[in-house]
């Protein structure tokens, strides 16, 4: 039997809401970046840096980064509990690798954002 001790919120509803809210944030962020790139045909490095140097953009990017991690965790946890049901050790190892990657992405992302 697959257990739920490693899932994000111990509640299916919580995970479900988190996944949908983070999806909205990620969609808005993607659309905004696409819009910015389309609206600036001669995009230069200075404009790109100028965009990310603004505090609101840092907040927006951080929200997107945290959303990405939460969204990916709920998704990967679901995949692991669907397909890796035979071996708890394998499932836990997979979850650990996912969690490790997401943690590195988050810290590295914050580091990049605040270095602009």
């Amino acid at each position: 039997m697959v257990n739920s001790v490693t899932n994000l919120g111990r509640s299916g509803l919580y995970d479900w809401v988190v996944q949908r809210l983070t999806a909205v944030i990620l969609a808005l962020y993607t659309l905004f970046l696409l819009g910015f790139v389309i609206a600036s045909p001669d995009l230069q490095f200075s404009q790109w840096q100028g965009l990310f140097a603004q505090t609101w953009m840092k907040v927006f990017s951080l929200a997107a980064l945290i959303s990405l991690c939460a969204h990916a965790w709920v998704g990967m946890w679901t995949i692991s509990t669907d397909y890796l049901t035979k071996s708890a050790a394998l499932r836990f190892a997979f979850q650990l690798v996912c969690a490790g990657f997401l943690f590195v992405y988050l810290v590295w992302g914050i580091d990049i954002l605040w270095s602009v």
Partner: protein
Amino acid sequence: MLVSVYRYNPEKDEAPYMQDYDITIPGNKDVMVLDVLALVKEQDPTLAYRRSCREGVCGSDGMNINGKNGLACITPISEATKGKMDKLVLRPLPGLPVIRDLVIDMALFYKQYEKIKPFLVNNTPAPAIERLQSPEEREKLDGLYECILCACCSTSCPSFWWNPDRFVGPAGLLQAYRFLADSRDTSTEQRLAELSDPFSVFRCRGIMNCVNVCPKGLNPTRAIGHIRNMLLNQQL
């Protein structure tokens, strides 16, 4: 007509195998798959399958017909072989243990059904005659109460294949909503509390195989959506 049937007798077979039968359908009529099975059984009395009412009411003869779950008694061979060669491939419903040939062990399916408490709970004193419902309240149960528990939906659901011990499955959830939507039931809060874990309801990924195969034309995915909304409204 060539009929290929899944055969497995655990007492003598080491592994399941497909056995072909050449069946002549009298008058070349468009008969039901169950009629074809009866002809196969005449040829080979060792074949085991469940059947009872032969008119889509009892839900005993659910099986995988040319790759799609359905009731053998109400599936015409013309529909089963549509777009394919003149061949009928019959397998047991997938995802549950096979007892013999086309007969599956439905214990897990019933366990999930039992889990949702498929009966009316009302602790208020019983009225003299009966608990009344308005026509509008009764209408809410349409599309829910008609389920015959044939298991075609749950056994076509990948989420149920992966976690049959924890995911209630479309059939159970359709019935869970049938009692959540019932104006006479007073245990809504408790029913919802028992469904809010990450597996019981939220394993549904909206694949909609259940809707595709339901022989009664019901929509478990929509019922699951209603349960999610009820859970959300309760918590917000």
